[in-house]
């Protein structure tokens, strides 16, 4: 793979041009996959013999939980790219991804609570997985708050990317520390690549479509928000220039 072609997109102009073409497709596909996956999942799959219709919340819960973690991973990668190569688009993409990831975390927590109420008999338990998601939510909050608090763009990008690196280490540490601290109520991983069968096929295929939909939705939202950030920054520069001239 030729890496030079990848770095070309670090040019904001090129980025905007490319995403102009790509964004409608990604957004359209996301909408299609979500509509297809959710309708398939909600109306055309059988009810679980023990969980009844509540099992269907899996189509929202699992993809959003997955994306909540992947969003942080993406922020980690883009932060590293910013620190190493100092491409502004990268820093802005990290900034753009944070609120999306935070919302995914909230969706995962809320759908989990709604499912947990009839199934576990409680909205919330201090279970390792639930707790680490709450902690992840706090990390998102801190990261976003730091972006908002600093006025200078480059300083903010530097500080938040270092926070993202340090935070990743501590988030991982917390994940395993929490395991040690309390035994879980949450079931094991519903999806893993090394298992023969994860969930029954009837639930599995619509779930895959929903996951694809969430991934595409995330990509579309991040691209859109990154474009907005780039344009907002351009506008600030233009306004500043105008004031200087006047």
């Amino acid at each position: 793979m030729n890496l030079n072609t990848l770095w070309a997109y670090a040019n904001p102009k090129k980025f905007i041009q490319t995403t102009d073409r790509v964004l409608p497709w990604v957004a359209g596909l996301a909408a299609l996959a979500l509509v297809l996956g959710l309708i398939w999942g909600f109306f055309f799959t059988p009810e679980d013999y023990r969980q009844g219709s509540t099992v269907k919340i899996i189509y929202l819960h699992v993809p959003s939980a997955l994306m909540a973690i992947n969003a942080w991973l993406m922020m980690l990668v883009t932060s590293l790219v910013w620190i190493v190569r100092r491409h502004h688009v990268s820093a802005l993409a990290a900034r753009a991804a944070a609120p999306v990831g935070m919302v995914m975390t909230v969706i995962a927590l809320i759908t989990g609570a709604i499912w947990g109420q009839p199934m576990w008999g409680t909205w919330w338990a201090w279970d390792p997985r639930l707790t680490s998601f709450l902690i992840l939510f706090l990390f998102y909050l801190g990261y976003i708050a730091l972006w908002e608090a600093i006025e200078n763009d480059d300083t903010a990008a530097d500080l938040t990317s270092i926070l993202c690196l340090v935070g990743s280490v501590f988030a991982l540490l917390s994940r395993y520390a929490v395991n040690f601290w309390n035994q879980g109520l949450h079931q094991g991983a519903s999806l893993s690549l090394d298992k023969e069968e994860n969930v029954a096929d009837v639930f599995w295929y619509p779930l895959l479509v929903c996951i694809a939909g969430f991934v595409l939705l995330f990509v579309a939202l991040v691209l859109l928000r990154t474009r907005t950030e780039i344009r907002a920054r351009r506008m600030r520069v233009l306004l500043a220039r105008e004031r200087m001239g006047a």
Partner: protein
Amino acid sequence: MIALLIRDFRLAMRAGGGFGLGLAFFLIVVTLVPFGVGPQSALLATIAPGILWLGALLSCLLSLDRIFALDWEDGSLDLLATSPLPMEAIVTVKALAHWVTTGLPLVLAAPVFALLLNMPAAGYQPLVLSLLLGTPALSVIGTFGAALTVGLKRGGLLLSLLVLPLYVPTLIFGAEMARRGAEGFDTTTPLLMLAGITCGTIALLPFASAAVLRVNLR
């Protein structure tokens, strides 16, 4: 380095408010808890390790913004940055000074406060040991948070928001060790994990704090 350390000690001692304040805050937290949960001594004894750890953590947090704020305001941080001392060393010394003036008094006072909360006798040694091992990590992590927010006008609340999630692993293992100790269980596992976290943060985090401080002084 030693000169800087001594200077920071002197400032903390004489400037007032820095040295005893953390300790007083710790005492207040411990005093307020029985008002909140009721005076039953059995209940207090169960939650004592957790309360003491939380109190120590909060009083540590309270003094964090003083690590760099005063030096930032009067410009001595810029002087330090241009001195031959590497930034990593400055940050480490600052964290050490913070620990000696805030963490160490908390460790020493913890047994007295544990008495107030009616903690079982077996718990004293693990409690003190866990605080002794854990509070340096709190200071080092806090120094990182303080370095992040040093240039901000109202950084105090943001500082708590940034630092508290980072405190989670330390708190979990520290409080777990104190709790196991108080209940008479084996404390080896949390002890080792806590020591690991402390050593890891002391070894690695000064580099991050120094990088952050350089950005802020740019």
